[in-house]
């Protein structure tokens, strides 16, 4: 989209705001504040959609013309689905009345209550909701910068990175080694690297059976570990090798020119190197100091309003949301609570008490699904914590039929949550 149409969208918003001031007797115009949402991903698209459903006028600013989900991107790497099947347009949101503006936000100004886009346009807000996701700490692994990521892809944001990694897997000869290097906690999608190892192993077992997946981990344990390792033993034998931190898994340095990974103890020259670097909140939050000098944004966990600046709400991966993991499901669940709180605050009401759910389904193979779930509430200290006695992981002794059902329900989850985000 060109700069011209961005301006047109922005003007449309200004027009709507004017209509509200000249026609204050219309009930919806009175109650509709100008809410601006940044990011049309799991948190932002959901927040925009649920605010519209509550009758609030919303402008959603997104830098890309469509959204490709990280969830199910591992099935693209495994050759099970096409990239187009994980890409979603914004037509449904527009039809429901969300003003979707394409633009990259450069700065947030909490005093002027406005945001600035590439090209200089500004958009004013009454309340701002930010769900901009993550950025990488490029300095953390020696030699791993943005240029290195073109050769040793992270594929931890879905898009061209996903396609680079898939092409490398396709080009790799039988007998090759694929290294996956997951970071320490906290990071986006704790079970994600291990689902990735599984689905790459599924592809290799079928197409290049003499190959190997080597996980060089910065941790000594990981999400759903028992279930993953049992599934790996059952389906892939010794095709997947996991090297924990304490046995020299931690990646200290990489040399992209020779595809070499240097761990604390060892050196691995591999055929495909998937380096997943440590993460922090999207750097856009720094333009308003919303991470307070840390990696993630502190918030009031009931309303998601920043504890640094009033009228700015931060949710999803970028926020500190108590004990909820950084997942798409968490961001979707938080967005609905945040949208309800913002609608209440705009109407001068008290926000209601929240309740959240997170579930992470993982595919160990296309017909082998496992999951972890939790229900979350606000506890006395004001933070989000799981409800004791609920949730947990899939049973360790389940028959193949249960694993197959959970794989179907994983696909059901994907269909439902993307419909909940984009209409």
């Amino acid at each position, binding site marked *: 989209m060109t700069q011209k149409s961005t301006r047109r969208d922005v003007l449309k918003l200004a027009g709507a705001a004017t209509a509200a001031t000249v026609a204050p007797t219309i009930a919806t115009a009175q109650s509709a504040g100008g809410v601006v949402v940044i990011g049309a991903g799991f948190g932002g698209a959901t927040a925009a959609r649920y605010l519209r459903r509550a009758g609030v006028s919303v402008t959603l600013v997104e830098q890309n013309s469509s959204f490709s989900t990280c969830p199910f991107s591992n099935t693209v790497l495994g050759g099970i689905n096409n990239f187009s099947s994980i890409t979603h347009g914004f037509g449904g949101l527009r039809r429901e009345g969300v003003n979707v503006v394409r633009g990259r936000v450069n700065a947030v100004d909490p005093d002027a209550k406005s945001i600035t886009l590439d090209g200089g346009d500004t958009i004013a807000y009454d309340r701002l909701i930010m769900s901009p996701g993550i950025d990488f700490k490029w300095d953390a692994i020696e030699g791993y910068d943005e240029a290195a990521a073109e050769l040793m892809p992270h594929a931890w944001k879905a898009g061209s990175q996903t396609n680079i990694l898939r092409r490398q897997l396709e080009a790799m000869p039988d007998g090759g080694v694929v290294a996956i290097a997951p970071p320490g906690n906290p990071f986006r999608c704790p079970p994600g690297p291990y689902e990735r190892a599984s689905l790459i192993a599924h592809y290799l077992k079928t197409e290049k059976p003499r190959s190997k997946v080597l996980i060089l981990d910065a941790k000594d344990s990981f999400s759903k570990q028992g279930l993953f390792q049992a599934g790996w033993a059952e389906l892939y034998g010794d095709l997947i090798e996991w090297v924990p931190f304490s046995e020299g898994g931690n990646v200290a340095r990489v040399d992209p020119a020779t595809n070499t990974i240097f761990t604390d103890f060892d050196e691995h020259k591999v055929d495909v190197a998937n380096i997943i670097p440590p993460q922090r909140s999207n750097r856009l939050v720094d333009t308003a100091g919303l991470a307070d000098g840390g990696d993630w944004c502190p918030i009031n966990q009931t309303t998601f309003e920043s504890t640094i600046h009033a009228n700015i709400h931060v949710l999803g991966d970028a926020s500190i949301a108590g004990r909820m993991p950084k997942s798409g499901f968490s961001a979707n669940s938080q967005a609905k609570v945040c949208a309800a709180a913002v609608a209440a605050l705009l109407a001068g009401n008290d926000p209601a*008490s929240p309740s959240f759910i997170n579930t992470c389904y993982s595919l160990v193979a296309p017909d082998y699904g496992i*999951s972890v*779930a939790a229900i979350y509430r606000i506890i006395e200290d004001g933070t989000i914590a799981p409800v004791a006695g609920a949730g947990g992981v899939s049973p360790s002794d389940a028959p193949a039929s249960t694993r197959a059902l959970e794989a179907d329900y994983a696909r*059901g989850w994907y269909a*439902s949550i993307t419909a909940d985000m984009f209409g």
Partner: protein
Amino acid sequence: MSPIKTMVAGTFGAALLALPVTLPAAADETAPANLANACAGCHGTDGISPGPTPSINEISEEDMIALLTAFKNDEAAVTMMNRIAKGYTDAEIAAIAAYFASMM
């Protein structure tokens, strides 16, 4: 009706119908919409599922209470709902059931 629903409604529905259902006081409890909207992550917006997960938008209040109570008490063979339903009090289950029923 799904097999689970038939099974649970048949076993527990009749007994439950005889019990008085008390709804929680709306104000200081978790808002019913906040409870029910979280279900949409798996069951779709307003409980209308586009994929293999069952839709839950056309379940009567009584059946919903019976189903969620059975899941909570491990009285139905399921993959997920036993873990989910344990996160809600009986009053919250009643509020969720009333919320979905009010949209029918």
